[in-house]
């Protein structure tokens, strides 16, 4: 090595980027949590008042419960549907490429497109779903207007959008299972279901956990769907935490408070993900 500075030159863009867009914002937001600031006027030091306000802010806690509500519906649904579709595709099937491409289509399309489209499908009077329900003699559902259902509807839509990706991940996982395991089980007369439970599931456990973590992180960033479809309603049932943080910041310009919420929420996400990862490592033994 003639030039000792060369590696530093190569990593310097990253260092600069890290300082400007990661390190500084994190430290600055810590400072901001103790202030009230709308950017226009000077900052006002407020001690812990933002934190106190946060702990008493029912809407913020509701947004967190809503987010978990979303995850509780979204994750199991996602796993069951994508695993089932992957299992089907993993059989000796013709047109495999077509099916895979079809499932994958919503994944590549912008969430904005999906949301605008599903807003119409969910419509109460003349949305496609309700028209289908009525045509088979069932009653209409307030997909986006019933506070008990709206978040579920969004979770279904998100599942529809992402399933294709997880089908592929599961397919990769399924293909790592050695075929002679299945052959041995067949000789012993195991049923299809037994083979799935005793061989497939344990073998693709790592994929399942990966899917859980990816969908958790995705779910915590829920924003554009409620922003376009419901604005957080009805009865705040689809107010996601990111939407609430956005609202505090850009509707009221409570920057200090909004940053406090963002800081706390990020810590919460980290906590959840760390717990999930711990659990996975234990499961690996």
């Amino acid at each position, binding site marked *: 090595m003639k030039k000792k500075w060369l590696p530093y030159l190569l990593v310097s863009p990253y260092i600069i980027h890290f300082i400007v*867009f990661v390190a500084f914002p994190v430290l600055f937001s810590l400072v901001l949590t103790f202030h009230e600031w709308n950017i226009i006027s000077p900052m006002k030091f407020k001690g812990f008042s933002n934190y106190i306000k946060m702990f008493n802010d029912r809407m913020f806690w509701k947004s967190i419960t809503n987010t978990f509500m979303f995850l509780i519906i979204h994750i199991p649904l996602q796993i069951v549907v994508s695993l089932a*579709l992957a299992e089907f595709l993993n059989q000796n099937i013709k047109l495999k490429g077509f099916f895979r491409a079809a499932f*994958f289509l919503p994944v590549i399309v912008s969430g904005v497109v999906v949301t*605008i*489209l599903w807003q119409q499908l969910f419509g109460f009077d003349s949305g496609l779903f309700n*028209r289908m329900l009525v045509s088979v003699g069932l009653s209409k559902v307030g997909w986006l207007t019933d506070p008990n259902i709206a978040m579920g509807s969004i979770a279904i839509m998100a599942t529809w959008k992402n399933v294709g*990706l997880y089908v*592929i*991940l599961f397919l990769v996982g399924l293909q790592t299972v050695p075929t002679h395991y299945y052959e041995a089980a067949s000789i012993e007369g195991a049923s299809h279901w037994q083979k799935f439970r005793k061989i497939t599931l344990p073998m693709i456990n790592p994929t399942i956990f990966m899917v859980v973590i990816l969908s958790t992180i995705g779910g915590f960033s829920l924003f554009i769907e409620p922003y376009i479809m419901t604005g957080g309603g009805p009865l705040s049932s689809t107010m996601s935490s*990111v939407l609430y943080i956005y609202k505090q910041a850009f509707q009221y310009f409570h920057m200090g408070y909004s940053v406090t919420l963002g800081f706390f929420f990020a810590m919460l996400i980290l906590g959840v993900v760390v717990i999930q990862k711990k659990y996975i490592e234990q499961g690996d033994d």
Partner: protein
Amino acid sequence: MTKKILIYTLLIIASLTFLYPFYWMVVASLAPESEIGSLTFLPSSFSWHSYTQMFSKIPIGKAFFNSMITATITTIGVITFSSMVGYALAKMEFRGRKAIFYIIIFTMTLPFQITLIPNYITMVKLGLVDTYAALILPFMLNAFAILMFRQAFMTIPQALIDAARIDGCSEIRIIFQVLFPNIIPTIVTVGILSFMNSWNEVLWPLIVIRDESLMTMPQMVTLFSVGGRSEAQLGVKLAAAVVLALPIMIAYGFFQKYFIQSMASSGIKE
């Protein structure tokens, strides 16, 4: 045999579930406004009315251009800078290498919710609000791409690099001329992922761009959908959604395999 039929039936139903809504969206955007509410397969007549209306209401062409510029420059930036960092981490010895590596891992796990608002404030203070720079700079580098490149470079035999050095190549030339042809799959993956992420990003443009002539396409369509200019007309909203979906769908049609591989690898490497 019955099992096979069952599986095929289920697969066909599933693919219809994924494809039909898109079909409906396209047909509805071409149908007369009054028929959208009852549309299932085909309207009584087709017209471009919703599209001409939409094009006259919002500068969607400009937005397409903005998205194109933003996504292209971001992608070039990510490939250039991340490969440099990845190369240094993979093939060079220097003090602080470990530290940088751990910082990168840490950044990957850091939720964006924490930096969102402070980064906006940075943009305001740097006077970058309403510029392309605001859309591009924060995404010029990313931890995931660096790790991908690092991994790719680690698999390259040291002998290749040594030979190039003996030939008198500078390290920059080694990366971009000697090594790049050997890691094309990684470049494609990083390229597709960066392009798609940039193309589909909405929250950040909503925050830093308020000038219509600089808005990106998804942002423009979002605001058109929630704002007043669509005058509560359904067809124009759907037309905007179709126009937003089209470019990426066409790209997907051509490079389907790469899209699927790239997206899948983004999950697997976590």
